């Protein structure tokens, strides 16, 4: 092994690239403390690839789920008899536990990230679909009539009147779906799908019963859920300027 200082001096890697993995390993071995600061300080970089995978899993799955659910909502708005089968269908899919879903796909897609993304996107359909329908239903009849009276086409009414007025409910659905997906994506590791669950049950796990590992992984997951939630709440605020104009 090349001396860390040599590489660092050559400017190839930063000095702190070479972590002292042994620091805190006694604490890890005992696992008596709730949190081993030394270990955490020297190993935190190992979470980075799994954190990034986690973000990717969530973003891709929610995007696919959103596009699909939105499409279903528009279809069932046009042909209202589709509404009940869509509600029942997405409801049943939502009921199937995600762990089971990952492995039901086993004979078809095997293990890996694609399987996880399919299961996670399907899981978001129900919440987003239901909230989109609810939002569109709650648009006041009078607003639509006024728009029609102004000579708008159906497409224009949808884009300029109905969707903006329905956006609070749609984004609420998106928030709930995203926050759930962040949590459920930790299970993707069971099916070899990557994400923060990998450090707990994956091939390169850092310890299923190592408390420091669990707290770091859990903390990162919860922080991610909060950040996504707050970002979407910001989007919601931006989309609904009229809410702020109203006196309290």
């Amino acid at each position, binding site marked *: 092994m090349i001396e860390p200082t040599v590489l660092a001096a050559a400017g190839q890697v930063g000095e702190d690239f070479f972590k002292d993995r042994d620091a805190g390993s006694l604490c890890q071995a005992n696992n008596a403390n709730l949190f081993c600061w030394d270990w955490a300080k020297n190993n935190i970089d190992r979470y980075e690839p799994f954190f990034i995978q986690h973000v990717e899993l969530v973003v891709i799955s929610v995007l696919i789920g959103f596009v699909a659910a939105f499409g279903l909502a528009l279809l069932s708005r046009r042909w209202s008899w589709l509404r009940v089968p869509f509600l029942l269908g997405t409801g049943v899919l939502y009921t199937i536990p995600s762990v089971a879903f990952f492995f039901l796909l086993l004979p078809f897609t095997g293990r890996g990230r694609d399987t996880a993304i399919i299961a996670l996107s399907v899981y978001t359909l129900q919440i987003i679909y239901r909230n989109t329908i609810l939002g569109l239903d709650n648009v006041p009849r009078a607003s639509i009539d006024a728009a029609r009276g102004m000579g708008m086409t159906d497409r224009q009414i949808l884009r300029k009147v109905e969707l903006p007025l329905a956006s609070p409910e749609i984004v609420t659905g998106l928030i*709930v779906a995203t*926050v759930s997906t962040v*949590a459920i994506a930790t299970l993707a590791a069971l099916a070899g799908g990557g994400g923060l669950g990998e450090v*707990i049950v994956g091939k390169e796990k850092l310890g*299923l019963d190592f408390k420091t590992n669990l707290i770091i992984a859990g903390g990162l*997951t919860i922080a991610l*859920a909060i950040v996504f*939630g707050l970002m979407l709440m910001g989007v919601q605020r931006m989309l609904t300027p009229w809410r702020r104009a109203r006196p309290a």
Partner: protein
Amino acid sequence: MAESETGMSAIPVASIEGAIEFIFTPQSSNVTGGKKVGGIDQVIELTLNQLWLTVVALAIALAVALPIGLYLGHRHKWESFAISFGTAGRGIPELILIAFFAAAIGVGFRNVVLALAILGIPPILANAFVGINQVDRSSVDAARGMGMSELEILRKVEIPLAIPTLMGGLRSATIAVVATATIAPYGGYETLGDFIINENVYGENGVLAGAILVALLAVTLELTLAGVQRLLTSPGLKLRPA
């Protein structure tokens, strides 16, 4: 399933037929030293384990969340707390929760049940709040005018009118709890998830069988609760125009 000549090197690919066979007939395993795994007896045992875990966890969650949600809803207090608590609860990473309880408090039924109850509390509380909070104020005023006590108003007016929302909360909680009960083996309590998690014992067909059984259990519970909701919903509420 025929044992391959080369032993461990060949990994049998999961098939629906194999999974169904696993559910009804015990199979040989590579690691149990001749002891057979799977089969209907073990399936029933693990199903009952998972069901029991779910029911106890939900009972605890109801006992904690329902009074708080009903009270806050009745008083129309802390609206944003109750609602964001419900959303935030979905952000609890269930795998890490179970593993952390096992590592920090210990393994076994009691600790797993507590972890699962924590997952059940947010949806029940949030829906109890929303259901009671949105009951028509004039109905409540009318009841109060008739001389009903606050508790009577809650019991005879608000709860019956809020049944669909209350049951919605229980159903969300049930879905979350029964799903997470699948990974209870990480907390040291065997459920159907054992088939899924311990692939080296049960094989690929066992994994698929576990997934099928868990899915069936969850859908059955959901349908049962949907039926209960129909029975509990006052006939007047079902007449709502479309």
